[in-house]
């Protein structure tokens, strides 16, 4: 049965993968990425993560949660993020 008074654990929506909602997928071109973190700042899902690629600080999307809204792509000052249609799988 349900727990007492409907109490929920902190941050537990992470159990639900909103990535399944996505129609378009952001693909970051690490070569272009200047690590400015604009995409990270603006992502409503908070699902962009910092990464080191070839010694360079870049950003990438956690596709478990990315809903594919395209904000990161739109706001990337150097056009490093492309939105690509999800494939059926």
């Amino acid at each position, binding site marked *: 049965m349900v727990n007492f008074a409907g109490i929920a654990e902190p941050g537990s929506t992470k159990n639900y993968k909103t990535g399944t*909602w996505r*129609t378009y997928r952001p693909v970051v071109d690490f070569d272009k990425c200047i690590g400015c973190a604009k995409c990270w700042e603006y992502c409503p899902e908070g699902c962009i993560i910092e990464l080191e690629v070839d010694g360079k600080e870049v950003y990438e999307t956690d596709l478990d949660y990315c*809903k*594919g809204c395209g904000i990161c792509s739109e706001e990337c000052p150097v056009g490093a993020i492309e939105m690509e249609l999800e494939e*059926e*799988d």
Partner: protein
Amino acid sequence: MEEIRIHGRGGQGSVTAAELLAEAAFEDGLEAQAFPAFGVERRGAPVRAFARISDTKIRLRSQVYEPTYVIVQDATLLGTVDVEEGIKSDGKMIVNTSRDQSQLDIDTEAEIITLDATKLALDILGKPIMNTALLGAFSGATGEVSVEAMKKRVKKRFPGELGEKNAKVMEKANKIVGG
């Protein structure tokens, strides 16, 4: 009485499809009912809608558990949503996909009919709104509702060019699945 379930994503017009289906059935002289999966699903989230059609007055108010027909608006749902749940073994499932039936991983005895509704919609409507194509296909594949009634209703709902184009989509989809 036949029960129909439609799977899609918020924003793809699944509820409208169920409504049009009910309206068309009514137009054909049947009794009909349509309703969404109750709740407020956000854009992009998986949604469902339902319809019932019958010769006699429909009084049943429960949800649909064992649909005869299932329509899947978006094959990307197949991985996450249990689209085959409860479908009657002699039922039919209409899936929007560019792939071949055999490439789909759906665990059901029901007949699976595929259709590249997205392409059809993009071709004729210029945008990926597939619901009317799938309704046309439903008409063709099941014969439960006439494509004429559907066309009439879609034109009524979307007067002018939009309705005409959707009617065309219906017509075409209906043909494709052999209606």
